[in-house]
């Protein structure tokens, strides 16, 4: 099937198999391997991207479903060599260890802060419910998001 999608500001046209997930399309066709795949039941959130401005799990969307949509992936978060304040905050607060969940965490964090620029700890934890991290125990991820909120509101 022919699809046209805008990804990180660039528009692509591809003929894709209907059964290919958005995550596979990003990874295999576009070589955007920052979107990770950690499960097969929408459970882990490693694949989180933004579809038309809202966070979505790219493993459970088909590429054909995002025809005409605007997608943002982790590769589109930094402005050239300048990291997004959320990325900066994760680095400052040691919000990542192995880095595998990190792209999904950053994309989810961006979504949390977009909808609620001043979230409480509880709201952040609730917002992260769909994302697993096996390394950090979430402590420093929560701190990273709190710190990012401060920076972005300043």
């Amino acid at each position: 099937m022919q699809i046209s999608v805008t990804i990180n500001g660039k528009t692509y046209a591809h003929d894709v198999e209907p059964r290919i997930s958005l995550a596979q399309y990003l990874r295999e066709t576009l070589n955007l391997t920052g979107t990770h795949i950690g499960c097969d039941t929408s459970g882990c959130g490693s694949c989180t991207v933004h579809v038309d401005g809202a966070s979505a799990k790219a493993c459970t969307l088909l590429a054909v479903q995002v025809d005409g949509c605007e997608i943002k992936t982790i590769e589109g978060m930094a402005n050239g060599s300048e990291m997004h304040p959320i990325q900066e905050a994760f680095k400052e607060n040691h919000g990542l260890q192995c880095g595998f969940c990190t792209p999904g965490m950053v994309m989810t964090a961006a979504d949390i802060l977009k909808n609620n620029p001043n979230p409480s700890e509880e709201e952040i934890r609730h917002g992260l419910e769909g994302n697993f991290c096996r390394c950090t125990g979430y402590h420093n991820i929560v701190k990273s998001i709190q710190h990012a909120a401060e920076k972005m509101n300043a």
Partner: protein
Amino acid sequence: METFIGKPVKRREDNRFLKGAGKYTDDIKLHGMTHSAFVRSPYAHAKIVSVDTSAAEKAEGVVAVYTGSDACGTIGVPCGWQVDFKNGETMREPMHPLLAKDKIRHLGEAVAFVIAETLELARDAAELVDVKYEALPAVTCPKKAMASGAPKVHDEWEDNAAFDWCIGNDRAEVEAALANAHHVTEMTYKNHRLAPNAIEPRSYIADYDVNADKWTLYTSTQNPHLVRLLLCAFALGIPEHKVRVVSYDVGGGFGSKIYHYTEEALLTWASKEIGRPIKWTSDRTEAFLTDAHGRDHIVHSKMGFDKDGKIVAHLTDEFCAMGAYLSTFAPAVPTYLHGTLFQGVYTTPLIHLNVVAPFTHTVPVDAYRGAGRPEATYLLERIISKAAKEMDMDPAELRFKNFISPFNGTTEPGYQTQVALQYDSGNYEGVLKRGLEMLGYEDFRKEQAEARKNGKLLGVGISTYIEGCGIAPSAVVGSLGARAGLYEVGHVRVQPTGKVSVFTGAHSHGQGHETVFAQFVADKLGIPMDDIDIVHGDTDQVAFGMGTYGSRSLAVGGSAIIKSIEKVLEKGAKIAAHKLEAAEEDLEYAEGKWTVKGTDKSISFGDVSLTAYVPHDYPEGVEPGLDFSSFYDPTNFTYPFGTHIAVVEVCSDTGKVEIKRFVACDDVGNVMNPMIVDGQIHGGVVQGIGQALLEEVVYDGEGQMVTGSYMDYAMPRADDIPMIETDRTTTPCPHNPLGVKGAGEAGAIGSTPAVVNAVVDALSHLGVTDIQMPVTPKRVWKAMQS
């Protein structure tokens, strides 16, 4: 000059990870690469009646299909540790085949391997492989596996035991002491089975280059050299110098990526057969079915006390599952990584542990974060808290009564345990005092009493753990059955411009070696961190190494690098002395330069480096170059310790446990980067909480896995966990140059019993004395009702 040791230096590796530019194995694409899928058994125990691959072979895009009847069916992966029976009989070591041929021994065991042009085509074709099975009864519980008449996992032996083992004092002596004890506390429980669940699934690419006659294996491993050694010397018998094993970025390990898995060997074998690269990446369900699991001990234990509450004896019997085959380090886990910690932090004079390790119709069990030490700690810390309740003593007080007194391991000797080991240095009362202070223990007890009056169920649980890291020396582990050495390699290559490349056999899969190792190298050489690069994860670049597990990277790998730095400085001093026309003993090295003592005559590290590579004006008899590699074999384990305290509130209506506070005071020796150590503790603690409250791999009576996805296996999520309050005491390790002990597993070792102790404490006035993990709302509710 800026120094780095002990500072929370931000991680260099984060830049690539945060931009989605990490290089995990599944991110790699090779020219002409094929994809693959496995046909896996839907039964835990079955006869394979027939395998028909004809339709799959003809399917679109299929390159090859292999089964156990092909040559790969006669190849197996080895076990790396041998524990013989108590009576001297050799450990029973079944062949662990790359593909099952006649018999299935666990759910998910691979029967056929399909290679195709794309992943989708490989999976389509795998569906076309027609396997006929004759299902057989299965046994998944290690205790039931030893009952007479239990279904046998391997027909060649009379029962399911892989080995049995014991450690400590004479059993009869321990039993006699228990018979005479003033009070005996008893516990029977299951330390249940867990799935490690690194978020990156296992992934491999094997690439045979026919023109060079060389193999490259890209693998998500914690120890590339060990995989290469096992692959070459044991599994495939291919020449080691023609095999390169690469593991760039690895998305978490927790033990599960230590082992040499059948898929690694099979892909490597098949890549030569088809002459093309092959990729395989596990999906999550495959990960649950085939990644080595952790724990799975059935425990019966007794601890005796005198009338003052001093422990007089401890006797434990355990059944510890091995799974269907012996995974790489499996036999070491319930034995030398477990029984040797039964002293805990206490002066117990008599200890005996007896272990029976049976095969079961399950995926193999091996080391999972803590490996044997969490199981030992859980037992000791639960039973001592249970005993305190029974004897009507405060659990902190009972611990203080029984602690080994502080010792530094230098002016005071190490502590010789009843279970083989000699502890290096420790101050166990120090961490408990600090932990109680952090919590405000006295005040909490008052708050708890008040809360009870109002029907609120609050509880506090204490755990004071010790663990053993960086296991060594090689000669000792060899005498205990290890089939490998446990040293590490550190190579320091000073480039002509004075920039430094450090090659380490340790491997980072989240630990931050690229930053931490550069921190201490910078300080020792007196040069900026930016001048140092840390290289790991490639057998073509790093001479050799044993990898990262058992919290060994700094204690063993860091020490190897220090040895090489010493050699660099020693040779550098010769060159400097020549250039400065001074005697070597008149020089001192600081802040990146050699200075003639008491003068301002000096030469920089960079100038000496350049001289070493442009040796025109050069000392006689000294070789050019500044490049040293060292092997470091420690003299002992290191022994981190700490106190973890949990405060929980139990909902009286639903039985749900909420962790209100979690306090951790750990002593991991000297700390290179406190930010990273705290991060390790946080992550470990949450894994331990996961075991206590949420996680369990469940097999049903037929060996079907009930918890094979994230829908069914409950992993800790952000809203299950509070912030973790951390602090440290510092008792340096006396026997390695950095004085470090290791921090990777401590969190997972200390936390689990703290949480369960807290739940039992919250319910104790209702008559609850014990509760089986994971402490689910259902179990709590039932305990409250009974």
